[in-house]
């Protein structure tokens, strides 16, 4: 049992609980809701076990679906994000990201912001597309994606700053 594993398990449980108890009840203007539970996938260690991340994201998504009666939409969206994460790292931090030590929960730089923005957009677009499940709702889907993305990012950044481990 090393501490990274423990921290991640704790994060998994806490973010899920927070999402279900608090953020699922937040409906700004009736249809804009934040989904900061994906912070688990975003903050997962860069060089961590990839299969573990994929399995954990699926589990997280399924639990969310269980609580919101949404079939498998959260599970699919979380899986997509978990799978595309290395490519997003490559895009945001450059090719040699694996050799750098990337710490996401630190001061917000443009690279970190790009990464979080892209992750949230990918997750939300998949989620809302599958939730509507009809191309005639595409415009609504795009608008909801845009507005919810802004909301989620705001809350994600607040959470990152709140739980930032202050070593200095």
């Amino acid at each position, binding site marked *: 049992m090393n501490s990274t594993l423990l921290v991640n398990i704790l994060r998994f449980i806490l973010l899920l609980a927070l999402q279900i108890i608090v953020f699922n009840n937040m409906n700004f203007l*009736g249809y804009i809701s934040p989904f900061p539970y994906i912070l688990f996938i975003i903050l997962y260690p860069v060089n961590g076990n990839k299969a573990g991340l994929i399995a954990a994201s699926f589990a997280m998504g399924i639990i969310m679906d269980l609580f919101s009666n949404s079939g*498998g939409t959260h599970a699919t969206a979380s899986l997509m994000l978990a799978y595309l994460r290395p490519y997003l790292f490559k895009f945001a931090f450059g090719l040699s990201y694996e050799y750098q030590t990337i710490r996401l929960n630190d001061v917000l730089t443009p690279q970190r912001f790009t990464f979080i923005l892209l992750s949230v957009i990918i997750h939300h677009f998949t989620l809302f597309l599958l939730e*509507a499940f009809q191309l005639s709702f595409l415009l609504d889907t795009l608008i909801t994606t845009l507005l919810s993305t802004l909301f989620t990012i705001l809350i994600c950044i607040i959470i990152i700053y709140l739980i930032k481990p202050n070593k200095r």
Partner: protein
Amino acid sequence: MQQIFNFIFKNSNRILFLLLLSISLALTVQSHSFHRSKIISSANFLSGGVYEKLNSFDEYLNLKTENEALAQENALLRNALFKIEDTATVKQIDSVKGVKPTDIIVSKVIRNSYNVYENYLTLNSGAKDGVKPDMGVVNSLGIVGIIENTSTNYSTVISILNKRSQINAKIKKSNHFGSLNWNGKSTGFVQLTDLPRLAMIKIGDTIVTGGQSVIFPENINIGTISKIYRDKQTNFYTLDVKLFNDMTNLGHVYIIKRKDRQEIINLEKREKDE
């Protein structure tokens, strides 16, 4: 053989991803296409239990409005009772089915959603209390939805704010009927489609449940007409109906159990077979 193993080891992440993706996509498609066959629903002991705990905190905040609603309903029922006490209208007791054609189960909404296209409610009574799929759910103001899934202690309801919900409804004064849908736009309005152009309607008319439904009894309130659209191609109206119910604020509800439902279904089935 060795190469196959190598291939699997090399692409293990991708294979895991594709496997899980197909599972979750199958669940998504399944939840959108079939009626009443959801595998993942909140009628289970885990999410039902959590929502019940959360609701017990929530309840205190709404005690006052809930009490007012109950008092108003009491007054209404008292009023109806005084009217019935006229001896000329004593009802004959139906000896086959008993006195009442319907039974009522009181229940409470422990989870309400209204911000997606397919909204569901979770109630805190289930198979143990006699709840079965396809029973109607109403409250004192009007209809709420139809039971979809049940577990031992909890059940889920397709809200009328759900794209897949379809309920038979009619104009209260003229008996012309259509079907009630939701277009996913506003939580205060639903749409009544397929209403014949012959119907004489005007804005403000009351819409109630129709007699064709085997789920709801006739004449339960739904809402009032707020907008009328005429379709040029077909001979039908589409109406915007303003709901009596505030679907974003639901407390106690009643589940309607129709005793003659099975009989009607069997009869119609026999007719179809012949």
